[in-house]
């Protein structure tokens, strides 16, 4: 058997955990294609970076694979019509996001013909050259299929000063429940390796390593079988330990290279791609098909018939659930794996490019253990695959000590969830880190906005001063109205005047409650006093 020939590489990263896998729910269900639903809601943001701009309008007819959203900026990806039909609206719709907010979405009514737009298959990808392949991968809307959703073409362009010698094809899939990569490797290994060889050619890598967790021995043997005839491809088994599928942890375990903090794998000559991305690359180049569907594991204790489905993007989760026999006693819906996936508010959102799993947890699986204080047991320190000190970070984040929590390497945290999983006090540790990270980022944005405002107000002050000086100069040149000039120099700064008025207004507002009388006062005051500068009184005279 395959697993006897393949040595198992141990997990080189610190910490890690071994949770229950629950993979048996779906590991033996072959990939099944879900029929195209009648109505699709295709979000314009299905990736990291800027949302795409809608190219279609209500009433437009589109064919399968037509671009309906064009990328906005460098880190962005286009969105394609998942089937042929009519655009009914471009409207906000619930996004598959933990916030439960809406995002811009193209609503599509399928015509049932499901006809392709013109495709341009290029089995002879060598003729395209690396730049040509990158361009096509960008046009095909490829993003990382492992759950992060980072545009693939950006990754394939490591820059001139970074030489990539090794591609790691990530078949780790160390999260519980998920089996979509496992099934893909078992059922379509040739296509995956073909895609991997295209990626290898594009970045000029000599070596392609397919890394698969040791518990997926059928996938290992399938990939080994398919790799015959590809001398540059090797298949290795890696230890079964979460988070083996995390990029930097896998790279360390496979190559022994440690990606520096804040840097990219390409800095150590490695490119890490999910097997699903390699498969999508194959379809994008060899078949010319843009990314419009993917394999998703539908699993969990609350769904009646767990399955692996190939689903068009934009299909509502409710429709997917119905195709799996529906659900009962649903307590929590997770998009992605249970460790890094997001809990969704309901089953309305559609599935998108980064949806590798939909896990329907029963009510009894939703935690209601009491949250206890941290008892400093240190289990989180031992479990952390980045060697952070999660208990200290927790205290700092909880007390909003945002500067100190960054000294504790908050931004090196990969949010894998190991610390919270082992925590005997049931503390929502990762939530605290996410909270601290988003607060820090929001503060930085606020600071940028404040800096812009400061610069603008300084520029304005300078302009006003200049204008005033110019006016003064003119007046002196006239040398006629000396008295008027004196009066002018007494007038106060317009903003001081405004401040005084604003203060008056607030005083009045505190005194009177009705809005209407307030408005009356405003108008009255505006008319009576008029603005303070000479320039403005000119304007009001004009009026």
């Amino acid at each position, binding site marked *: 058997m395959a697993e006897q020939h393949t040595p198992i590489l141990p997990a080189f990263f610190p910490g890690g955990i071994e949770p229950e896998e629950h993979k048996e729910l779906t590991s033996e269900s072959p990939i099944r294609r879900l029929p195209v639903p009648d109505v699709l809601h295709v979000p314009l943001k299905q990736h990291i970076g800027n949302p795409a701009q809608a190219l279609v309008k209500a009433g437009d007819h589109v064919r399968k694979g037509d671009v309906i959203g064009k990328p906005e900026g460098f880190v962005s990806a286009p969105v394609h019509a998942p089937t042929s039909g009519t655009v009914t609206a471009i409207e906000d719709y619930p996004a598959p996001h933990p916030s439960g907010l809406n995002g811009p979405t193209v609503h599509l009514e399928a015509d049932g013909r499901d006809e392709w737009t013109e495709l341009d298959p290029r089995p002879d990808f060598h003729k395209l050259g690396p730049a040509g392949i990158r361009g096509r991968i960008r046009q095909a809307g490829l993003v990382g299929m492992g759950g992060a959703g980072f545009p693939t073409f950006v990754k394939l362009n490591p820059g001139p000063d970074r030489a990539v010698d090794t591609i790691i094809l990530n078949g780790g899939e160390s999260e519980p429940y998920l089996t979509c990569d496992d099934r893909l490797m078992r059922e379509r290994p040739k296509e995956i390796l073909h895609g991997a060889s295209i990626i290898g050619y594009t970045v000029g890598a000599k070596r392609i390593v397919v890394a698969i967790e040791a518990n997926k021995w059928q996938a290992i043997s399938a990939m080994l079988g398919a790799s015959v005839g590809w001398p540059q491809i090797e298949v290795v088994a890696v230890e079964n330990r979460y988070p083996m599928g995390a990029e930097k942890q896998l790279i360390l375990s496979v190559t022994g290279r440690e990606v520096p903090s804040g840097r990219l794998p390409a800095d150590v000559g490695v490119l890490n791609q999910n097997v699903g991305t390699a498969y999508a690359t194959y379809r994008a180049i060899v078949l010319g098909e843009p990314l419009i569907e993917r394999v998703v594991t539908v699993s969990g204790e609350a769904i009646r018939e767990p399955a692996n489905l190939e689903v068009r993007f934009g299909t509502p989760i409710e429709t997917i659930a119905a195709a799996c026999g529906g659900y009962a006693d649903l307590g929590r819906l997770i998009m992605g794996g249970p460790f890094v996936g997001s809990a969704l508010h309901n089953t309305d959102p559609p599935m998108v490019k980064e949806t590798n799993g939909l896990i329907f947890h029963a009510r009894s699986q939703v935690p209601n253990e009491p949250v206890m204080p941290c008892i*400093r047991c240190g289990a989180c320190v031992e479990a952390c695959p980045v060697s952070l000190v999660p208990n200290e970070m927790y205290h700092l984040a909880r007390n909003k000590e945002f500067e100190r929590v960054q000294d504790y390497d908050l931004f090196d945290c990969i949010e894998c969830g190991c610390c919270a999983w082992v925590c005997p006090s*049931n503390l929502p540790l990762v939530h605290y880190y996410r909270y601290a990270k988003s607060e820090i980022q929001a503060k930085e944005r606020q600071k940028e906005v404040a800096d812009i405002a400061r610069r603008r107000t300084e520029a304005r002050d300078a302009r006003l001063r200049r204008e005033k000086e110019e006016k003064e100069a003119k007046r002196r040149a006239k040398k006629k109205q000396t008295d008027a000039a004196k009066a002018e120099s007494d007038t106060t700064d317009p903003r001081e005047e405004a401040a005084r008025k604003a203060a008056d207004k607030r005083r009045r507002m505190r005194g009177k409650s009705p809005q209407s009388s307030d408005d009356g006062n405003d108008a009255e005051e505006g008319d009576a006093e008029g603005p303070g500068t000479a320039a403005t009184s000119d304007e009001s005279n004009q009026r």
Partner: protein
Amino acid sequence: MAQAQSRTPSLAVPSSPHDHGGGSVSSVMTAVIIGLAPVSLYSVYLFGWPVLFLLVVTLAAGLATEAVMLRLMDRPVRPHLLDGSATVTCLLLGLSLPATTPWWIAALGAVFGIGVGKQLYGGLGANPFNPAMIARVMLLISFPKELSTWPAIKPLFSGQALSFSEGLGVTFAGDKTPALPPDAASAATPLGHLKTELTMNLTVEEILGQGYSHTQALFGSLSGSAGETSAVLVLLGGLYLWWRGVIGWRIPGSMIAGTAAMALVFNIYDPSAFPGVAFHLLNGSLLFGAFFIATDMVTSPTTPRGQLVYGAGCGVLTYIIRTWGGYPEGVSFAVVLMNAGVPLIDHYTRPRVFGKEQAGGPPVGSEE
């Protein structure tokens, strides 16, 4: 049907991870209590009823204090009372006292340990010092005579055993006469005996020749506080905790190694004045401290290197206090002293972060 369900607005939407290993504070504490069971039972057997009464008194006083304090601070009483942390503290305190300690001293210790040592600092998880040890240190300083009077061993079911009512008398009435006739009122612990005799210009060999053997220390037929008696049973409990993953090897290992290293060096330097490694390891509460006291999660470091430093510090300090200090045993002082250094130790022993030269430092491989 499914449609109707999807419209229910409130599926739980916590942050990931959406899975939990299942551990809990109470399961940790339960494991510690189980680990303490062999020593406690053996101690009841060795010293008879007074030990049982002593444990009951510390538990009752400690839990009552916990409940009152939680109520005063307006915190949920039941979950915290049932989490087992106060029970562990009280057990540890009870086991570190001499069997004949009067009930009011034990109760005072428990009230102080839980009330001042734990709850005044903010309750579970917030106390810098081990509450059981801070209570014991307080008692040792306040009542040196009572806390250093060790009863002779009178196993249950043997001819010397105290009856139930005699036991009651010892714990609650301060009775000494029936149980402990003046001539045999107390038996010095080996450490205490050694300390007094060394001041009389005897050599270690001469002193220990007077009826001490390592086997006795191993199986606990020598006098001492309840937890000190049998090295074998302490080890058994400690191994259980290690197997359950409640304690790591670092703190107990480095604490034992710390004392052993000191003992080895000084024993080689002058065997007549400094007893050997085995004597130090098997006597007193070193093993008990290494497995049950120093490993207290709240008051020990969380970083791996920090745990080594802390354990070694406890071990070395224990030896120093035993050998040159005013008391024959130093585990409680050593642990409390090292507790004070834990925040500092934790700060300076943070592990090297993945991809960085050091915690909080620059990325690996960066020039400079």
